[in-house]
């Protein structure tokens, strides 16, 4: 599996979230966001890896990801 090739843009972001269940929910929320091809939340390392859809504006997509995550856990943070 080769992530981080040129065709598909993948980025890792630091996050902050309180519990493992919330982290699972964040992952679900991020995956559902338009412009996100795939997302993996790593609760132990407190990071989120986002694979963007082709041609997506990462900044704009991340705004939406954060908005969706806030809906399920108001206190969660994504640093981007």
């Amino acid at each position, binding site marked *: *599996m080769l992530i981080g090739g040129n065709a598909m843009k993948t980025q*890792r972001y630091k996050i902050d979230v*309180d*519990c*493992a*269940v919330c982290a*699972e929910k964040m992952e679900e929320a991020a995956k559902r966001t338009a412009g996100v091809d795939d997302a*993996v939340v*790593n*609760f*132990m*390392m*407190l*990071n989120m*890896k986002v694979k963007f859809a082709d041609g997506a504006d990462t900044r704009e997509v991340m705004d939406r990801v954060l908005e969706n995550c806030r*809906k*399920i856990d*108001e206190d969660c943070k994504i640093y981007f």
Partner: protein
Amino acid sequence: MNEEQKKMAVRIAVTAVITIVASVLPDSVYGGSRLLHMLPYLVAYVIIAHDVFLDALRNISRGQVFDENFLMAFASLGAFGLGVMKDAEYTEAIAVVLFYQVGELFEDYAVDKSRRNISELMDIRPDYANIERDGKIVKVAPDDVAVGSEIIVQPGEKIPIDGVVLDGNSSLNTVALTGESLPRDVAPGSEVISGCINMTGILRIKTTKEFGESTVTKILELVEDASSRKSESEHFISKFARYYTPIVCFSALALAVIPPIVRMTVLNLAPEWSNWFYRALIFLVISCPCALVLSVPLTFFAGIGGAGRQGILIKGSNFMETLADARYVIMDKTGTLTKGVFEVTGVHHSKISNEKLLEYAALAESASSHPISKSLQKAHGKELNRGRVTDVQEKSGRGVIAKVDGHTVAAGNDKLMSELGIACIPCHQVGTLVHMAIDGEYAGHILISDVVKDTSKEAVKEMQDNGIDCVMLTGDGHKTAEDIAKRLGISKVYSELLPEDKVKKVEEVIKSKRGKEKVLFVGDGINDAPVLSVADVGVAMGAMGSDAAIEAADVVLMDDDPLKIDKAIRISKKCMTIVKENIVFAIGIKAICLVLGALGLANIWMAIFADTGVLILAVLNAMRALFVANV
């Protein structure tokens, strides 16, 4: 504990004290007033539960029904309500929230602790690099150092960037990278790897890579990424968690409503609303899947961290799962089981002293850059005076003839000897032979061969004892391959393979395996990227400094000790055992409590154990994965 955790600990303690005191005080203190009796419990309840209620309200307003705060708030409020209406018994209501908070606190603390543990284990990130500017040493960010710059590393400091020693002698502590506690000596010309700690002398190093491409950065990136590749067990837990809470909650609702109605309408009995309501509350208390959702990734995280400390970098928990099912380990010979460097392993039939013969051979071959010449020089071990050598004639593919100290020395293979008409003595051992003739007379031969690593035999035996089939692949000739395999106790050997043949062999083994059995391939990471990717798990060995290998493999062994192969498998097995224990234990206890609860045989205290108790036990069990040094 951090500030927030301390505050919570105080709240828990205060609540516990108030509740216990209130429950042991004789009822006469309250003068028969139910309201007065309730007061201390109410105070305790507000102290411990207010934030749970606030969070619950906030989440409910966002449509998050199955939020754990809401479920706990509802369960405890229900229990409190039963207390007010019935028996003035409030301890259960308080206990629900109190232990929920204890669980949360413990979870927080344990996760913090293991995060800290692992970042300490992986404390190899250099903060600065020393460079010399106008005769003074200045600290700069490692990122700002260009390739080819000179950096200075003082004793006690980490080497920030990969490079070559220009000046200085020292010992390096590589324990954080390889788990090997024996220091490594370096001298001018030695390649050094970032992340090692310089112990004794000042080193001046010329960097050969940028910080971003250096070993230390590659390793840290790998560790950051490691637990984001999820295993089957983690996917199972995610799925389980998604359905578990809603199912338990709807069951609770059904339990509270259906039996009383059935009793009333069909059986003509008293509905016993509060009895069934109490059973439903038990369901709510057990409805959180926390223990599982936390303990499984925590186990993998701790296991990957513990393995990292041993110089075994596992790129994801999915690979840990695969390693645990390893049944076949296919090893490349050169670089994995053998050192991959040619050494003089014998001097035979020498007419002069062995040292003298080696010296002549080294001198005669001194002009050549062939690996054989290098091993001769290494075996000789002393400085060579090239002035003693004249009239060098390279005989391509056969050897060399030169004048050394006035003697005509011929060093080469049997073809060279027969050309010169000199009879030579063959060797019964396997390897490359350098026959020597001095002044036209046979003077003996020097055996050069690839050396088997000290631990290879033990490593193979350990794996075989654990029920693993070892297979050896090599591009070398049958005779050499059979010889080494026999010495190591490996019965399956495939020799004279081209790189693409190795891929085919691994594919053959994969086809022949049964069920869940997994196939490992172990190579030194040089030229075997295709084979690494074909196997179920590709293990690159001795990868310290080879970023190509770090990239291609699923598991990276930082040093080149084959014992680490079995160790990686054993660590993975230990983690998988813990994961399975936790899954069975947590789901089992919860299921038992749910059944007993539905039958009216459980009380809230049992439910609290199934929730918080199981969480704490599962987390403690998960933390065991961190301790893998003596697995």
